[in-house]
């Protein structure tokens, strides 16, 4: 009787605890939402909780789409991202699973000997050791869920970064295409002049063919630029999860001028470590492993225990009493499980250290790239482009003086456009560096591979 009472009471208690506190339906996504908002000013969206995004997407698409709009759409609409966020659902389910007490096993038996009264037995038992260790199982699963929450937050930031850089790439591709079209116009004009000069009898077929070759090459180059812009746009379409009429959105503006100076180096390393979601995720993974180690050790020391009550009638007498069965941990005291969990702990600790080193290095690299790219952009904007303008002006003067001809004048314009293209490429790299820096400071280490290409076929 007292055992029965104990068992029943414990069951009720654990059931209440686990159902009320541990495995809320949002799986802690609200905390992820807050993190994303604080760190990046973005709205995280989980379709499972927040419902389908259709109207919001259509509304954003109705106006020209800037980089931040593209990110917002992608966060709402990219199903690969949503699939990855479901890791949270899975972790939450595992926690739920770990929080529930073991079921009660019922056993009934009846045997009949002729001429005698039938005999029967009826037993109800439960896995008592599982019930005893239930808080520890729950502890492991809840640490894993915490890890998945930070992993998810980091993953969303990483995804936003890929969308942003894909957007810059597309912007750059459009600008490069526009400039290639200007080169093509210049080449067409040059070819036109050459044709007229040839018609007038002033230049030989060789010169005409040279001008034509240049024109045809420019056509080829413009076609390539067009294809590049197309595929960059498609990449964005896929990231934003768009199809059909939705893909007719409009690009908002050109790559902007560089922002303020890069942040100070000393401050930077500390901030990147403080903010790192990767490191927090690893901390939680470590905690889960530690808890697994404790659990394994505890389970190894205690015999595996089942307990319950039995009611039976044998040879006319009724019997009622407790039953217990147990494994004696004579041979396997869980040493293997403990060693496994401890090895995992050591591994995670080393991964943590390695990650911290990589983050520091990455933030220094990002800052350096940001500075170099910003300087390059300024150099193009303040020195090379004005110089090209001056060269056009001086070439125009030399043309006016009849010292240089129209071909050289057009060539000066073409050289200026080529410089403008280098400027666009420098700007594109600057914005990549800027996004990477922002990303690291928001807490996500952008690896060379991996989640950069997330969401892409």
């Amino acid at each position, binding site marked *: 009787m007292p055992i029965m009472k104990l068992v029943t009471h414990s069951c009720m208690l654990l059931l209440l605890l686990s159902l009320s506190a541990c495995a809320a339906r949002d799986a802690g996504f609200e905390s992820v939402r807050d993190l994303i908002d604080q760190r990046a000013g973005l709205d995280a969206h989980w379709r499972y909780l927040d419902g389908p995004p259709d109207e919001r997407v259509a509304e954003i698409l109705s106006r020209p789409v800037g980089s931040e709009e593209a990110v917002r759409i992608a966060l709402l609409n990219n199903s690969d991202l949503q699939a990855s966020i479901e890791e949270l659902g899975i972790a939450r389910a595992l926690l739920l699973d770990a929080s529930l007490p073991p079921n009660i096993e019922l056993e009934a038996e009846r045997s009949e000997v002729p001429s005698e009264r039938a005999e029967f037995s009826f037993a109800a038992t439960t896995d008592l050791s599982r019930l005893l260790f239930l808080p520890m199982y729950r502890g492991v699963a809840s640490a894993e869920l915490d890890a998945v929450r930070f992993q998810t937050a980091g993953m969303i930031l990483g995804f936003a970064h890929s969308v942003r850089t894909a957007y810059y790439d597309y912007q750059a591709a459009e600008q490069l295409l526009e400039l290639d079209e*200007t080169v093509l*116009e*210049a080449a067409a*004009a040059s070819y*036109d*002049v050459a044709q*007229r*000069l040839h*018609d*007038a*009898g*002033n*230049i030989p077929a060789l*010169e005409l063919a040279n001008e034509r070759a240049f024109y045809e090459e420019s056509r080829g180059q413009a076609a390539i630029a067009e294809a590049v812009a197309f595929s960059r746009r498609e990449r964005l379409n896929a990231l934003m999860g768009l199809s059909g009429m939705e893909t007719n959105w409009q690009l908002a503006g050109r790559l902007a001028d560089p922002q303020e100076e890069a942040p100070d180096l000393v401050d930077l390393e500390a901030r990147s470590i403080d903010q790192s979601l990767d490191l927090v995720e690893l901390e939680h993974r470590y905690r889960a492993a530690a808890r697994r180690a404790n659990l394994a050790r505890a389970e190894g020391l205690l015999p595996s225990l089942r307990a319950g009550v039995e009611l039976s009638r044998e040879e006319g007498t009724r019997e009622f009493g407790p039953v217990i069965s147990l494994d004696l941990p004579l041979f396997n005291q869980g040493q293997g499980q403990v060693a496994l969990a401890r090895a995992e702990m050591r591994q995670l600790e080393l991964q943590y250290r390695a990650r911290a080193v990589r983050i520091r290095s990455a933030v220094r690299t990002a800052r350096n790239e940001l500075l170099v790219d910003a300087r390059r952009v300024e150099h193009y904007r303040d020195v090379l482009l004005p110089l090209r303008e001056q060269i*056009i*002006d*001086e070439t*125009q*003067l*030399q*043309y*006016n*003086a*009849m*010292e*240089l*001809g*129209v*071909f*050289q*004048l*057009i060539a000066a*314009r073409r050289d200026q456009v080529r410089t403008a293209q280098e400027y666009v490429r420098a700007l594109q790299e600057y914005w990549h560096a800027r996004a990477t820096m922002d990303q690291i400071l928001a807490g996500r280490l952008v690896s060379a591979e991996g989640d950069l290409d997330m969401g892409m076929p």
Partner: protein
Amino acid sequence: MISRRNFVMGSGIAGGGLLAGRPAVALQDAEGVAEVGTDAPAQQTGSASVVTPNGVSLPFRVVEGVKVFHLIAEPVEHEFAPGLKGSCWGYNGRTSGPTIEAVEGDRVRIYVTNRLPEPTTIHWHGIILPNGMDGVGGLNQPYIRPGETFRYEFTFLYPGTYMYHPHVDEMTQMGMGLMGMIVVHQRNPRYQVDRDFAIMLSEWYVPIGARRPDPREMSDFNVLTLNSKAFPGTEPLVVRTGQRVRMRFGNLSAMDNHPIHLHGYFFKITATDGGPIAETAQWPETTVLVPVGATRDIEFVADAPGDWAMHCHFTHHIMNQMGHEGPNVIGLDPAGLDDRIRPLLPGYMTMGQSGMAGMGHMGMSMPDNSIPMKGAPGKHDYLDMGGMFTVLKVRDDITSYQDPGWYQNPPGTLSRQASSEELEADGISL
């Protein structure tokens, strides 16, 4: 540098000598004996002093019967024509250098100071003199190194038109402007001339928009000069109707002879730097070919009033800074071309497709310090010439050799557009 020439003209004319037909004599009376000056040859011979258009004669002093001159070779800032300045080399602050004037039999001592960045010498081209005075660096004398002053001394044995120029790194030093004329007057001329001009012919390459002549150029000379001036920088040659005129040409161009053509007259070639040509051997000409490294004197009586062109007859030598890099566009169909190219190049204009007249005055902006295709406004229309071009202005009754302005053509002596009645009357149908 005194501007003696203007004073000479002014005083001579003011004194009424010109009207008497012997201005130089009048001048001699007005000036008296000059210890330092350039007029002495005129005093000594009764001939007119030499006029170096856009230039001067070199002053001298007489020391114990020797005429002492001083030439300083140095970098100079020179204006070829309005709008084109050059960083050149010259003598005594100018290119061409001052004309050395003396009289047959004069003993001269000429000091030469080198303020160039490299060694130099002076060769007295055509002068018969002792071998050690001939000025070929390394052959006849050591170099005159930067900062040094050398002394030449010899006697002008023969009258005539000669030249002086460096004989070290000749290509560079002459290509940069180091050269000058020497005039040795006859002591007892059989006749006098009233106007005696000395003109040095030379050629340069100044990249359009640059300012330093490039002496390495071999063929593409783009600034062609009379006394280092390109038209419209050349002074007109002003003469009173009826005067006997001599022109002395020297040529120290790098690579070109120049056929100098005078409009309105025929003349005779009377001398070379080898000496006078016997009158019986002179034949009439309208163009005198002046070879590189030679001088030619021509003479004529200016009996036809008017504005008469005088120029090199090589057409490329009467252009300023003509470029050759672009394609020839004559005959190009320009329809729609400006509209096509201006979106790319707002300053673009199709030009030259109908020829190149008027290119110098279209009002388009030009590279700094350049005078491409430039000429000057003329009396009737734009004067579409540059380079070796100047105007001989012959006038009745002038009292000054200042530029008298444009010639007023007597009625009925000026070409004009034909009227349809005239065409019809003469049986010309268009």
